[in-house]
């Protein structure tokens, strides 16, 4: 062991040894230091993947049935994937709140909600724009479209829940329970095209017998999917940092308000 390690108390079973893994990130300062390093890397990967994905997407030939509108798929499908992935991030954060009581779990869930809502909106909007020339309608109340609209309503409801309850510990637990209940909608979205008769096409990428899509369309789609996932992670890290700052400001404002209040004696008279 080096003398530097001995000075820092980093012996094998030293009680001074710092926390590791997710426990270490419970310290907001440590998490903010991680964000400072990780955010530029994740953003850089997202930009490179997006550039490659867009280049590949705009180089594909026209589809024999859909013509050039197949290019809408490269923004519609990744938006839908990320909208559902964001919800699964919130589900794991909700478990972090209820089971492990990790201090950053509620921060992670709360930061993911508006981003997930934005990707859900994108999925609905681009799907509707794609549906008009292909199906002849902007919207139908079928199982896939309706369950995906419900996802947007769940996101908006959760954001409203967080904003309406002042006490952070109570809002965190209530939102975590609501997130877990709302998670029932995710398999409904995924399997709605198998369980119900819908206008929407069945799954063509995530199938047991492999993707039913030509490689020329599949590869740019997967690259765009990765790019959108990286965009989500970059935005999520930045939004988590903002949420931590919001909580620090709130704590300082309360501290300032407490110190500004005149001290009172037991009989109620002011001593200051």
């Amino acid at each position, binding site marked *: 062991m080096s003398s530097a390690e001995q000075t820092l108390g980093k012996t094998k079973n030293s009680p001074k040894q710092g926390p590791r893994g997710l426990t270490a990130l419970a310290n907001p300062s440590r998490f903010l230091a991680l964000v400072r390093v990780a955010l530029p890397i994740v953003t850089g990967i997202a930009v490179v993947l997006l550039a490659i994905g867009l280049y590949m997407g705009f180089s594909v030939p026209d589809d024999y049935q859909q013509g050039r509108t197949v290019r809408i798929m490269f923004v519609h499908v990744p938006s839908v994937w990320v909208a559902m992935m964001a919800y699964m991030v919130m589900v794991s954060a909700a478990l972090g709140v209820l089971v492990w009581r990790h201090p950053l779990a509620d921060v992670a869930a709360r930061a993911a909600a508006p981003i997930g809502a934005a990707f859900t909106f994108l999925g609905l909007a681009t799907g509707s724009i794609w549906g008009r020339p292909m199906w002849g309608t902007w919207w139908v109340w079928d199982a896939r479209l309706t369950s995906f609209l419900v996802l947007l309503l769940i996101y908006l409801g959760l954001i409203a829940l967080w904003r309406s309850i002042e006490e952070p510990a109570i809002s965190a637990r209530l939102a975590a329970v609501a997130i877990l209940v709302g998670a029932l909608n995710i398999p409904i979205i995924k399997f709605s095209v198998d369980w119900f008769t819908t206008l929407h096409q069945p799954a063509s990428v995530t199938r047991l017998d492999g993707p039913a899509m030509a490689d020329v369309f599949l590869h740019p789609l997967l690259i765009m999917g990765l790019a959108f996932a990286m965009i989500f992670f970059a935005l999520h890290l930045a939004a988590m940092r*903002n949420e931590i700052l919001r909580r620090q400001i709130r704590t*300082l404002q309360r501290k300032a308000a407490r110190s500004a209040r005149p001290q009172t004696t037991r009989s109620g008279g002011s001593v200051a």
Partner: protein
Amino acid sequence: MTDLFGERYFAFIASSYAVTSLVLMAMVVWVLVTYRSRQANLAKLEAAGVRRASKEAELRASKKERS
């Protein structure tokens, strides 16, 4: 442009990419503007002498070291 989006479905393809770009850009602007305003708020509070417990501990430790 018509080569990228086609002539027949130009409006549909272009508008789907436009709405995607707008929403993504809006999210980027949202996180950046929020970050800057919160950092400014935090700096204002700290300038007024209101500090977090961890910062106060750091200050106390550095004062102790100096003395």
